């Protein structure tokens, strides 16, 4: 027996707290507890009734330690998606839905928290997960470098114009500059500065790279039925896919030749769209995890929004910005311009934009695709929708 989980669970509340890196006013768990209670307040839900938790990327905050602050009565279920990077972010919704639909939990918090004082630099933590002598022996010690190498092949060998990276970054900053919560609030991208900023690892300059924040995000998920009784309109999980395919993964850069420069999503996107009964043309807005500009482009290609051939026609600044663009992307500013708490902000914005709560509204949007961290050995994506 197979059961399609499409539409049967919903996000009922979101909470998000973000600070400049290294400046969180509380230890990591203190920030997280506040984000969880924010999500419950948003939904009109008693935090003590949360009975499940799921995170990704090796989050350090074990659910059982949250119980005294939340007043948790029963911890019935907890899990974490494998992987050191943001590849698992959307997969958390699939796990939560599975727990809810099989009766293992009733109300699940999806979360990620990060404070430099507790967990150190995120880039270092992600890399520690992957680090080995094959990499350090050749000076490859950061996600930026591993992604740069793939980006160079995407741009040079596969012929994706370098200008599309700039279009994506500009759109992110357009949205971020209008978002009071964003690091880029009030600051549109200075193109001259973007083009001459210091190199990090070619082809990436400074503004091609997401930069870490302290913070925490939490999303409350319940059955769609239970969500109807809560304060906010439910945002349903229409589909989720997580994993990888043969020829992609942790392969010492020996991924399949045609997959090497992708975001790694080609093995999961058919399942993603099929579960929702949708196609890329049905997606109204995209929240795109862009650790680096070119990986964001690769992800858009993988998810079927464009091809190597027509990417420059689709990934244009005017086309990517709300409210008028045909494919609004990262309406809060995304990881690049909103802030980077290991991508959880993109998940929060997926819910806000469908509830008409985004600071950059997309009129009439009914479907939102959340594309998880590209370039990770296992990746995940999800589609959300409102009736």
């Amino acid at each position, binding site marked *: 027996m197979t059961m399609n989980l499409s539409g049967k669970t919903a996000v009922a509340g979101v909470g998000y707290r973000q600070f400049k890196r290294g400046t969180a006013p509380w230890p990591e768990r203190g920030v997280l507890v506040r984000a969880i209670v924010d999500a419950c307040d948003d939904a009109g839900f008693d935090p003590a009734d949360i009975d499940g938790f799921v995170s990704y990327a090796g989050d350090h905050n074990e659910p059982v330690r949250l119980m005294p602050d939340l007043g948790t009565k029963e911890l019935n279920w907890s899990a974490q998606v494998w992987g050191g990077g943001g590849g698992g972010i959307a997969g958390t919704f699939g796990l939560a839905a599975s727990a809810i639909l099989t009766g293992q939990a009733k109300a699940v918090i999806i979360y990620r928290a990060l404070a430099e004082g507790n967990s150190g630099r995120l880039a*270092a933590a992600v890399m520690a997960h992957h680090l*080995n002598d094959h*990499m350090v022996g050749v000076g490859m010690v950061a996600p930026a470098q591993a992604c740069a190498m793939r980006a*160079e092949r995407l741009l040079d060998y596969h012929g994706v114009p370098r200008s599309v990276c700039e279009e994506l970054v500009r759109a992110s900053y357009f949205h971020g500059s209008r978002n009071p919560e964003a690091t880029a609030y009030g600051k549109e991208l200075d193109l001259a500065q973007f083009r001459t900023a210091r190199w990090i690892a070619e082809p990436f300059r400074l503004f091609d790279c997401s930069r870490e924040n302290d913070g925490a995000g939490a999303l409350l998920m319940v059955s769609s039925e239970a969500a109807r009784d809560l304060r906010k309109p439910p945002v349903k999980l229409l589909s989720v896919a997580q994993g990888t395919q043969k020829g992609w993964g942790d392969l*010492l850069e020996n991924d399949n030749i045609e997959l090497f420069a992708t975001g790694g999503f080609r093995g999961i996107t058919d399942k993603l769209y099929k579960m929702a009964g949708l196609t890329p043309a049905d997606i109204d807005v995209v929240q795109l995890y862009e650790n680096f500009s070119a990986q964001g482009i690769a992800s858009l290609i993988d998810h079927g929004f464009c091809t190597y051939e027509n990417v420059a026609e689709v990934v244009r600044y005017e086309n990517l910005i709300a409210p008028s663009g045909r494919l609004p992307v990262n309406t809060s500013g995304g990881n690049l311009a909103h802030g980077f708490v290991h991508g959880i902000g993109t998940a929060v914005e997926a819910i806000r934009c469908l509830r008409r709560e985004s600071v950059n509204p997309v009129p009439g949007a009914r479907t939102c695709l959340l594309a998880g961290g590209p370039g990770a050995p296992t990746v995940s994506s999800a589609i959300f929708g409102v009736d």
Partner: protein
Amino acid sequence: MARMVTGQLGAEGPYWDGLAKGRLVLPRCNGCGKWHWPAVWRCGDCGSWDHEWVEQPLAGTIFAWTRTHHRFAGTEGLALPYVTALVLLDAVPIRLNGLIEGSEEHLGIGAPVTGRTTFTQFGKDEIPSIRWMLA
């Protein structure tokens, strides 16, 4: 003498032993002939546990590369900027990373390179590794 950071993680022990002695050896499945990288104990294609490590010449073409300008922690032993190139070997369908030494004039995807083995300083460790030179 090699001093490793993580050491052997999978089945690639003979690779490190070879590199430390100045030789590149790579594994071929004795069941189906497939070259495996990363190295495996069991061939996922044919199920064989029998692999032969075969010496290979250090020659190939650049598949991808990046030039690092930012001082990432741990790389203090390398002068900035430095180029890391992923090279597709001529003899077997395996790609190996190495630092580029010498002229970078002809750097680019598809450029032919030859290599040598050496050690890379990483903190207090000395990691057996490959240096590539552009033809």
